């Protein structure tokens, strides 16, 4: 199995083997972060540009740390988008970054498909760090990596994803990744936050949080973005916590060793009680640590594929 994609845009287009290759590569990179000198020369001489059109701390920092541990040079560009500006900037900016002879653009953008569009217009590598509601492949990969590390496998696992599924790129990428690897995915949310046709992606739908937790090996709790203006679709915060919040009382009825995940940042007391976030079942900080290894793997693989393309001419 070899990796031949210059870009990582989403998990939908990946095969099971490609996902497994990323996970295996990440596993081999994880140890680097435990060394006294946390650096290998794998991407020495490469330039990675973090192009973030949306506020993000952890994903951006995670990519930056990952690139630096591989000895790449990293440039961060944070910029605001405005829908009024009709996005003329993204393609132009991408071409400018290419003209600077950078090797990889890591892009976060609030429009679904932005990473795909950028990849069509530049020949250097594009890694999607989250595009609109579409995909956030490295988040799902690190979730899956963490799960596999905790439970030893993905095949046959029951994973519940709770929260605003409709507007979540994390949910979409997780559903693609987990189902491709043979897990059974349940999504749980108030009706208006479940997008149509999600069953056709292979997920089971429930509006009952206790049912979603009951047999689950793991629960991935999404951040509720109450700042989003989606009008009537959004429940009241307290109402949401009462009906869908993950509490120790609810977990008491679930499997004893259920793995609790959250992509962060957490709204404590809204989608998850504080003592759950800090409790024994939580792997939230391990996810952050694993995020580095997964992103190192992704940067390494796309750079390698790019080099192969260049050699082939």
């Amino acid at each position, binding site marked *: 199995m070899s990796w031949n994609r210059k870009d990582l845009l989403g998990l939908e287009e990946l095969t099971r083997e490609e996902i497994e290759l990323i996970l295996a590569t990440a596993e081999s990179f994880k140890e680097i972060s435990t060394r006294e000198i946390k650096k290998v020369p794998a991407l020495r001489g490469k330039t990675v540009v973090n192009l973030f059109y949306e506020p993000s701390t952890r994903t951006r920092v995670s990519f930056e740390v990952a690139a630096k541990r591989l000895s790449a040079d990293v440039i961060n560009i944070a910029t605001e988008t405005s829908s009024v500006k*009709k996005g003329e900037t993204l393609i132009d900016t991408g071409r400018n970054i290419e003209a600077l002879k950078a090797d990889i653009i890591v892009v976060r*953008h609030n*429009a*679904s*498909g932005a990473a*795909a*569009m950028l990849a069509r217009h530049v020949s250097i590598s594009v890694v999607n760090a989250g595009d609109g509601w*579409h995909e956030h492949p490295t988040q799902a990969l690190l979730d899956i990596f963490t799960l596999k590390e905790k439970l030893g496998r993905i095949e046959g696992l029951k994973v519940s994803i709770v929260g605003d599924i409709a507007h979540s790129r994390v949910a979409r990428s997780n559903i693609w990744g987990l189902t491709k690897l043979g897990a059974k995915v349940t999504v749980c949310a108030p009706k208006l936050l479940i997008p*149509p046709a999600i069953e056709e992606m292979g997920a089971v739908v429930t509006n009952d949080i206790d049912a979603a937790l009951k047999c689950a090996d793991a629960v991935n709790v999404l951040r509720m973005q109450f700042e989003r203006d989606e009008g009537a679709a959004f429940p009241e915060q307290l109402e949401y916590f009462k009906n869908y919040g993950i509490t120790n009382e609810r977990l008491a009825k679930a499997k004893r060793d259920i793995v609790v995940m959250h992509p962060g940042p957490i709204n404590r007391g809204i989608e998850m009680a504080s003592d759950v976030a800090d409790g024994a079942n939580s792997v939230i900080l391990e996810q952050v640590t694993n995020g580095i290894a997964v992103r190192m793997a992704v940067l390494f693989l796309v750079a390698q594929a790019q080099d192969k393309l260049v050699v082939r001419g």
Partner: protein
Amino acid sequence: MKILIRNGRVIDPANNIDGVLDILAEFSKISKVAKNIRNGADKTIDAEGKIVIPGLVDMHVHLREPGREDKETICSGTKAALKGGVTSVLAMPNTSPAMDNRDAIKLLKGIIAKSAKANVVISGAITRERLGRELTDISALKQEGVLAITDDGASVDDDKLMLEAFKIAKVAGIPVICHSEDKALSAKGVVNLGLTSMRLGLRGISRESEYKRVARDIELAKKAGAWVHIAHVSCKESLDIIAKAKKNGVTVTCDTAPHYFALDESAVLGFDPNFKMNPPLRSKEDVQAIKEGLKSGVIDAIASDHAPHTENEKDIEFERAEFGVIGLETELAVSIAELVEAGILDWQGLVKKMSLNPAKILGLDKGTLSAGQDADIIIVNPDAEWVVQKETLICKSKNSCFLGRKLKGAVEYTVLGGKVVYKK
């Protein structure tokens, strides 16, 4: 000036003709259609092995002038039309200014007289500035020469206002062309609601937003006894509603665009905005239903909904890109491939949908090859293969959803009013 087109397979459904014949055009009119015409023509075109049909009538074209000459002009759009075999187009009124008063229409007629390369006929707006608030002076627009009224791109939400529009249009004797969409239901969507919107993480446009408004428009037209024409039908439910209304004697006609029978929603999965249109590309079942509707006759016409946009407005983030695609240069070849070659329509059927029927709907004396008619004739090589490429499209904008597609069937000659105006 006399032109003789010899030995082509002449197809003229109005006269139930399908056979190898000659056509003689004298000055601007057709003078004779017969076998072996012996007449000293000034110009003879050998059409052996070719198909000879009336020039196409496209009843849904955005020529963008006045106002957005960077996207298309009357001149560039009509040149593209002639290359596609389209000799008459109905210009949509969503220009700037909108065609909502006599002065605007006078201005447009002036531009047409000066720069149109094909026959351009005009539609007027239903409401002022197409805002759905206040009716235009429909009778005055009619006197100024509009052949239909439409707020295309928008639908009049107010039932009372729409009913009033139908009543006045009925008295004026012109059809009301409806862009049937309830924007409250389509809710800022950009692709078909369902698995496609789910996969792409984009807002979806429900089928309901179309067919519920189709039902309303038909209901109001029926009440007023007016002629309603539903534009760009894209989903099965709309067709069911239209079929039922036709059966019940309502004066309703409709059209669809080539992309609704040549493409389904899966085309959008790469986020290419050249597949973004409104209504959106629908499911495979809908595509099937559209084809059946063309075959059964529920769908009367094929129109391109030619909607040019600049690259700056189109080749950007999907959700921010403009809706719409160009179609004048590809509609005939796409229809030949998807309908004639696929056995859904025969040539007579195709000519009805693309020429005779739209002419009838608009009350235009076109779409036939009868003696005495305007000599608007096209000669098509049904075997010529070509690939749709940006570089060879002559339309000012290049936002085609068929780029890269291999098509069969190309226009070799376009004759307009007895003159050769396009030659391949």
